């Protein structure tokens, strides 16, 4: 039974391990234990132990075919060279510049500094620090990951800590390539990994200290493994998908939407196949429970999902009516993104072309779960914009967040394009 490639495992251990480490830091804070190298190493040792055990398991290893030994063609060398260049360039851009982006400094780096200097998440953090840090309610994975780096370094270094972000970029490419290798040959897998690696918006967010690329890793990978489960019904995939989905919620509030979408995709796929699987039902139920628990905890702490939208308290019906009036503006922003090569190259144009020209095929078995996921994400984000009551105005919300929201699921779109490529029997 095929499961995980070595590079894929390393990438997953980094991203899942870092996520779990930050969860451990939250638990340590609740228990009143300060962050220290020793207290953090406990978690790392447990993760490494589990990693070693899983690494030895035959169930989780992939056997390489002969193709791996074939020499690279010129085109493959070009793709591999370009990917390597982008990765090295991402590390260069990371280390040449300290934290400078607005949210990177104002929210994540400042929270990390607070946690590191306090040696914990202060018990009154969500109330006493409301005026110190904007968006106190944002999930804490990235600030805690930065604080863990500071703890190991023994000092605050907002330059070195940025290494977290290009490592997510490399991990995303490693997982993406490994997923593709299950469906396509090496040349085609390299082609689509090259496409993902060279999308300007992806490379920009691989270095700037924002949470969007780590979030894109978690939510996209959660969908990838859900897709593998939907095809192969191999339980490690759906378990991993759930862990990644939970870490997405721990990275950005949009993770709530993705958890619901994942649950919906599982249910819809099972309904389409007319085969109810216990683990699928459990996945959907736990995802729903996790979202409700998250919202309940926020409410108990007196926080909104996003404080930007807590300013206006209109009845739902008024919000919906206002929302319909916003649709032209929302669609206008979408077309700016879709036809803007500066940020996206032609990825969205290819997606639209594939969607329109092969409309019947994209709902067939191979592409169905991904098509549903993409449509649900687009619809979900559209509804968020329709109901947005940002204090700075709806236009501000749309223009400042649109391009970042598209980043979250662009890896899923490139994967969709790769499968469409296979479905249409295209050649390179």
């Amino acid at each position, binding site marked *: 039974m095929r499961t995980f490639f070595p590079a894929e495992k390393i990438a997953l251990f980094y991203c899942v391990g870092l996520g779990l480490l930050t969860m451990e830091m939250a638990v340590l804070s609740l228990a009143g234990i300060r962050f220290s190298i020793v207290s953090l190493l406990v978690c790392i040792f447990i993760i490494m132990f589990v990693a070693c055990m899983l690494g030895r398991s035959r169930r989780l290893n992939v056997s390489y075919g002969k193709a791996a030994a074939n020499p690279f063609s010129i085109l493959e060398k070009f793709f591999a060279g370009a990917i390597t260049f982008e990765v090295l360039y991402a590390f260069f851009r990371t280390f040449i510049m300290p934290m400078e982006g607005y949210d990177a400094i*104002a929210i994540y780096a*400042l929270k990390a500094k607070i946690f590191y200097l306090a040696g914990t998440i202060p018990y009154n953090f969500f109330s006493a620090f409301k005026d110190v840090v904007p968006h106190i309610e944002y999930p804490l994975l990235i600030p805690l990951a930065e604080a863990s780096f500071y703890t190991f370094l023994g000092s605050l270094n907002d330059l070195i800590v940025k290494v977290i972000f290009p490592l997510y970029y490399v991990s995303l490419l490693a997982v993406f390539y490994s997923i593709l290798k299950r469906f396509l040959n090496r040349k085609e897998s390299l082609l689509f990994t090259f496409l993902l690696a060279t999308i*300007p918006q992806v490379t920009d967010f691989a270095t700037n200290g924002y949470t969007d690329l780590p979030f894109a890793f978690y939510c996209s990978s959660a969908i990838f493994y859900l897709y593998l489960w939907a095809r192969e019904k191999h339980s490690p995939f759906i378990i991993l998908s759930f862990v990644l989905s939970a870490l997405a919620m721990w990275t950005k509030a949009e993770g709530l939407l993705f958890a619901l979408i994942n649950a919906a995709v599982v249910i819809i796929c099972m309904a389409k196949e007319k085969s109810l699987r216990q683990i699928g039902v459990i996945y959907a139920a736990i995802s729903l429970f996790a979202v409700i628990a998250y919202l309940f905890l926020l409410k108990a702490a007196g926080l909104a999902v996003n404080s930007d939208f807590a300013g206006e308290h209109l009845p739902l019906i008024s919000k919906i009516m206002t929302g319909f009036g916003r649709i032209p503006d929302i669609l206008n922003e979408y077309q700016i993104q879709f036809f803007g090569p500066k940020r996206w190259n032609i990825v969205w144009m290819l997606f639209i072309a594939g969607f329109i020209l092969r409309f019947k095929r994209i709902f067939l078995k191979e592409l169905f779960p991904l098509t549903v996921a993409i449509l649900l994400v687009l619809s979900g984000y559209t509804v968020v914009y329709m109901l947005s009551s940002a204090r700075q105005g709806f236009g501000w919300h749309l223009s400042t967040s649109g391009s970042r929201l598209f980043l979250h699921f662009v890896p899923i779109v490139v994967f969709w394009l790769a499968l469409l490529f296979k479905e249409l029997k295209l050649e390179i």
Partner: protein
Amino acid sequence: MKKRIFVRVALTVWVIIWAVFLVRPYFKKGLLDRYISLAKLSTEGKRGYVTGEELYSFIKFCKESVKEPSTYRIEGLEKDSIEHRRFKYYIYPNIEEKIPEYIFIYKTKYYPQNGYKEFSRMNDENYILRKMN
């Protein structure tokens, strides 16, 4: 054959756009000069370069002058601007408050404030006021 041509045309367009937007900032935004300047600097120098030398010097002056942690207000920076956010980040664990112990005055020659007296001065425009007991 048609399919292969379509794929290769799309790939060529992709590569051209990729190369253009990769190289363009070096010419349009003087990225090469920026990187050369940054490469020569220490980590501290890089922070100063990104923040702005004058503001970063003032932040260091404030940090060195007051006892941490204390409360402050900053005058001379637009509220919630990127400069204000950077100031808040670097100056932490000192915390901003409405009626603080210190008032940091940035790029403002004259700033009378009842109940406060001059505490430390960096130059004519940049100085610190302290609350009188």
